[in-house]
């Protein structure tokens, strides 16, 4: 991944995607469009196409629209007009330039955050329409380089970051050893059949943020949880194939995750603070596999911490003093309704919680999710500039005292990190687990 060109030029994508585009022929494009629309879409797609009355009311839902001075090219319906509508109207007879623009729009100018679903009077799922576009782009082999590579990683290793089988176990054991300095008999039980809980994470944790596994282990051990982590495939709950439209790989990765839980005979899966992974296991991946709901209950970290605090399994020694503001991640708030539980957790942990405005289901997207950040550094600037409204929202929370920004989602974390730096917002970013780890009563304290 040597390439780090900055693609401010709207007419150019990364070289690998450009290479993909240069291989396209009109016949190929038409064939793929026809195939996807005819065979893979149904009543939902048709209804959305026929129902949209072009009222433009979705516009203000979108942070890209708001951040670009209300440029209609960035409104949700505006983006659909430039992609799906045009594609259907022209029956797939579009050229390479159209596809190039569609790649940029579908992959880097929509976070699939579904905020617009709250603004459309008809309840049209624009994120779904965008996923149909991405599915077409996947079938045309013009998915942006970085996220395509991530999908390749999923296909080979069943994890997001080419983490090999030995590296995973080695990292977990290394964190277990590190954490034993703090709690001498701490364990991260691997492949423990019949545990209550399987804890799954996303691959960036073992790859770059091993301290999160460390913190999780401290929390699990302190709370006396009967838990395990798989030593084989299925330990990673993330799924960028879901965002590239490679549904077959998405399903395969999700199957590996659920089969790990099934093999270990756990009662439920607890997952770390990641949003898209929740969407992939509890919304999209399970459906592709025919499971209407996750076959093994999936508990997101927010809900897990809520249960631990509510039941007193975790006690707070001293509350976090700096005022915090809480970012509601799309995939677990609009996607799972965990906003009130997140507030309970935040209030239990912190002295003061400053609400962002808007908040809960109406919170602005971080700008990173939906696979956008995974399209790579080439699109970083357009991503941060496409979310100035988030910076304003953060500045506003800061003006009311917030010093720490809690983002209980990996993508949000990275996206907000970029925004905080780009706009020099000056907020310190934390996961819930960072604060729990910092403030909880640990065994030594007892």
């Amino acid at each position: 991944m040597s390439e780090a060109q900055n693609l401010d030029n709207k007419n150019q994508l990364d070289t690998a995607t450009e290479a993909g585009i240069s291989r396209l022929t009109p016949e190929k494009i038409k064939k793929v469009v026809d195939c996807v629309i005819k065979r893979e879409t149904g009543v939902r797609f048709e209804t959305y196409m026929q129902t949209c009355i072009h009222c433009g009311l979705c516009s203000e839902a979108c942070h890209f629209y708001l951040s670009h001075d209300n440029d209609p090219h960035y409104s949700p319906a505006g983006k659909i007009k430039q992609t799906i509508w045009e594609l259907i109207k022209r029956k797939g007879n579009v050229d390479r330039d159209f596809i190039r623009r569609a790649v940029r729009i579908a992959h880097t100018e929509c976070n699939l955050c579904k905020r617009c679903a709250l603004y459309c009077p008809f309840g049209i799922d624009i994120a779904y329409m965008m996923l149909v576009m991405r599915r077409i782009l996947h079938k045309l082999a013009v998915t942006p380089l970085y996220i395509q590579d991530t999908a390749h990683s999923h296909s080979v290793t069943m994890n997001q970051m080419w983490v090999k089988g030995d590296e995973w176990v080695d990292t977990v054991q290394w964190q277990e050893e590190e954490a034993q300095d703090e709690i001498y008999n701490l364990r991260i039980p691997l492949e423990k059949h019949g545990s209550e809980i399987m804890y799954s994470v996303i691959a960036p944790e073992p790859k770059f943020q091993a301290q999160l596994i460390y913190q999780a282990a401290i929390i699990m051990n302190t709370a006396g949880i009967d838990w395990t982590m798989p030593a084989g495939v299925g330990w990673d709950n993330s799924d960028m194939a879901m965002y590239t439209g490679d549904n077959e790989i998405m399903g395969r990765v999700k199957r590996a995750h659920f089969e790990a839980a099934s093999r270990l005979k756990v009662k439920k899966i607890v997952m770390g603070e990641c949003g898209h992974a929740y969407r992939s296991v509890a919304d999209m991946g399970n459906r592709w596999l025919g499971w209407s709901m996750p076959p093994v209950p999936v508990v997101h970290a927010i809900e897990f911490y809520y249960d631990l605090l509510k039941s007193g399994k975790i006690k707070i020694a001293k509350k976090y003093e700096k005022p915090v503001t809480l970012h509601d991640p799309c995939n677990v708030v609009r996607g799972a309704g965990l906003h009130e539980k997140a507030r309970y957790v935040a209030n239990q942990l912190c002295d003061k919680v400053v609400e962002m405005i808007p908040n809960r289901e109406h919170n602005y997207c971080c700008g990173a999710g939906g696979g956008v950040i995974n399209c790579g550094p080439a699109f970083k600037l357009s991503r941060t500039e496409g979310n100035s409204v988030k910076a304003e929202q953060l500045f506003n929370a800061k003006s009311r005292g917030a010093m720490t920004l809690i983002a209980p989602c990996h993508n949000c974390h990275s996206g907000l990190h970029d925004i905080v730096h780009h706009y020099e917002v000056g907020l310190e970013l934390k996961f819930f687990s960072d604060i729990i780890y910092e403030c909880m009563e640990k065994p030594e304290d007892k």
Partner: protein
Amino acid sequence: MNVIYQFVAGPLAWAAFILFLSGIFLRMIQLFVKVNQPEKFLLHYFSLRYGLRSIIRWLTPFATTNWRKHPVFTVVTFIFHGCLLITPVFLSGHVVLIDEAWSLSWWTLPDGLADLMTLIVIGSCVFFGIRRIVRPEVRFVTDASDFILLVIVAAPFITGFLAYNQWFGATWMTIAHMLSGQILLAAIPFTRLNHIILFFFSRAYMGSEFGKVRHARDW
């Protein structure tokens, strides 16, 4: 002229009604036949409770964030749709005709009120038309069909208003009114005007997904 009247009031009216009803019927059949392919989960997540929750919420003025964000538009939209649906159904002239044909009758609007409501529909169409031109985010997603649809909707109300008030000749205007009304009826199942039906389905599905699966509000 009686021949034309007779043709428009007779066979054409039947044709329009048949197109309207069978169009909607076929759409529904198509909807229910295709609902399980290829997305087999659609019906699975359907929830009457959450579907209705969403429909009622969105059919209540100012009950959603977006309705509150656009007060003028919200007022116009609700009054427009209300007048659009109520006026023709409770117009005395229409009820008299139905009574003569099938001996069915019901309460009717005072003519003055009906006139006012007709003007509101026409005015709303003008408002929507202007909004399509003036607001950039709406203009961007607008195409010719949107204006044609507005004209199709407004035409029976304009001609009806003129026929009732007998400007420019009541006879021909009455025929024009019937014709434009028939065009509107027949157009509903085959144009994006079918949002009046599909609204309930797309809304109910989104409501079900948000209520039953996502445990979040969709407004």
